[in-house]
């Protein structure tokens, strides 16, 4: 089975993706991760204004069968969360790189992203 791994993003070994635009990093989980989890039924996210440290836990995604912690790719302030997921957590399954995004972080240091996996490296990890 092959999974979508968009090139322009960076990835964590724990299966989050990160996409930076003008210093703001949007975060979600990968196509592979949503498939492994199965039907997502619950997403717990931080509040806007919370300050996260890169590599630390920021929330939880739960499917019917599993619970999985979510990790921040970079440090910074949470400037947006995807509230649509509270009523429609299935968006994570349906569109993990689009409508299923989870939060946006105003990155303290966007260069932190350079330490993460490239699409090619992530593809090797899930192969």
């Amino acid at each position, binding site marked *: *089975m092959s999974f979508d791994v968009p090139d322009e993003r960076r990835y964590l070994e724990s299966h989050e993706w990160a996409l930076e635009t003008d210093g703001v990093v949007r975060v979600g989980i990968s196509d592979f991760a949503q498939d492994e989890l*199965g*039907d997502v*039924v*619950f997403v*717990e996210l931080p509040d806007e204004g919370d300050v996260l440290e890169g590599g630390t836990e920021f929330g*939880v995604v*739960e*499917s*019917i*069968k599993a*619970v999985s912690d979510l990790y921040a790719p970079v440090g910074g302030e949470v400037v947006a969360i995807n509230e649509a997921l*509270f009523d429609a957590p299935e968006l994570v*399954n349906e569109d993990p790189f689009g409508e299923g995004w989870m939060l946006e972080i105003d990155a303290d240091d966007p260069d932190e992203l350079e330490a993460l996996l490239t699409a090619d490296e992530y593809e090797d990890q899930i192969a």
Partner: protein
Amino acid sequence: MPLQTPPLRGIHDERGAKFTEFGGWDMPVEFDSIQTEHAAVREDVGVFDVSHMGQIHVTGPDATALMQRLTSNDVSRLAVGDSQYAAITDEDGIIVDDTVVYRLPDESDDPTYLFVPNAGTDEATHERWLSYRNEWELEATVDNRTDEYAMFAVQGPNAADRLERVTDESVADLARFEARYATIDGVDCWTARTGYTGEDGFELIVPWAAAEETWTAFDCQPCGLGARDTLRIEAGLLLAGQDFDAESNPRTPYEAGIGFTVALETEFVGRDALAAIEEAGVDERLVGFQLIDRGVPRHGYDITNAESRVIGTVTSGTMSPTVEKPIGLGYVPVAYAEPGTTLQVVVRGQSKKARVETTPFIETVQ
């Protein structure tokens, strides 16, 4: 120890199933998605490979006596083709396992039973039966036939229609808990109107060698253990090893809500202990609950009262695909067991409000 594999491991793999270890078996957990499979069973029909369930065959002049003394229900009530749900208890009345006992057509004029212990317990159960048979000097043969039979569950409101298309004889007239042999592609399958989803449906015990043809005959949604779990929780049905476990969570049938399987008028291992408990009443009881706050209850989470004192543990929990609410089962003191009682469930360190509900959570076929 290597995992045991069901006869259809290859077929499931080709179909794209994901697998999990369950009771020492490598079983399909999900084919398409748990929600898709769950909905198929609630609304139409789905088929489960439950070949990990044990099959133990008991016959001989004392077969009834042996079954009577090792299961909690009244085996003497079973006519040929009947079945009953029962507990297997120890001397203290603790549930060791739960099972369905079928009375097969008599063999050589002797009563013949087939019973289905849970995955991974067949060897210990076989030993238990042999050991008690010898101790009581009963004349009965006890064969562990787990490796000789596959088992499928065809479940859902349209299960009878679907089965009628593939069997040579009609099975639609079978009553709940009634069974007979029906032929599928020339193979005799023990076909019982039983199941563990809360829906109408049938369980088929099929010779291992014919498993592939029989499975392929059902042109309907294949379902894995994931959907089986969400379906049985909604139906308020127990999972061995989780909702009761003789080692880690010892419970009597009265605590577990299956007191209806206890026939105190019969003599069986654990009977006297259970008679005393029935008389005195239980301290704790398994209840169903719904989480009012957001979150998903899971096995092992603490249940607390309003003062944050731990009063129990969640034994099973899920986000219910049918009622679309987080639901669960857990043991609490009887003072907290009334439907409507407010409890708290501790979900990853946070107290979430929950309310005791009447089980089953959905309307089921009795």
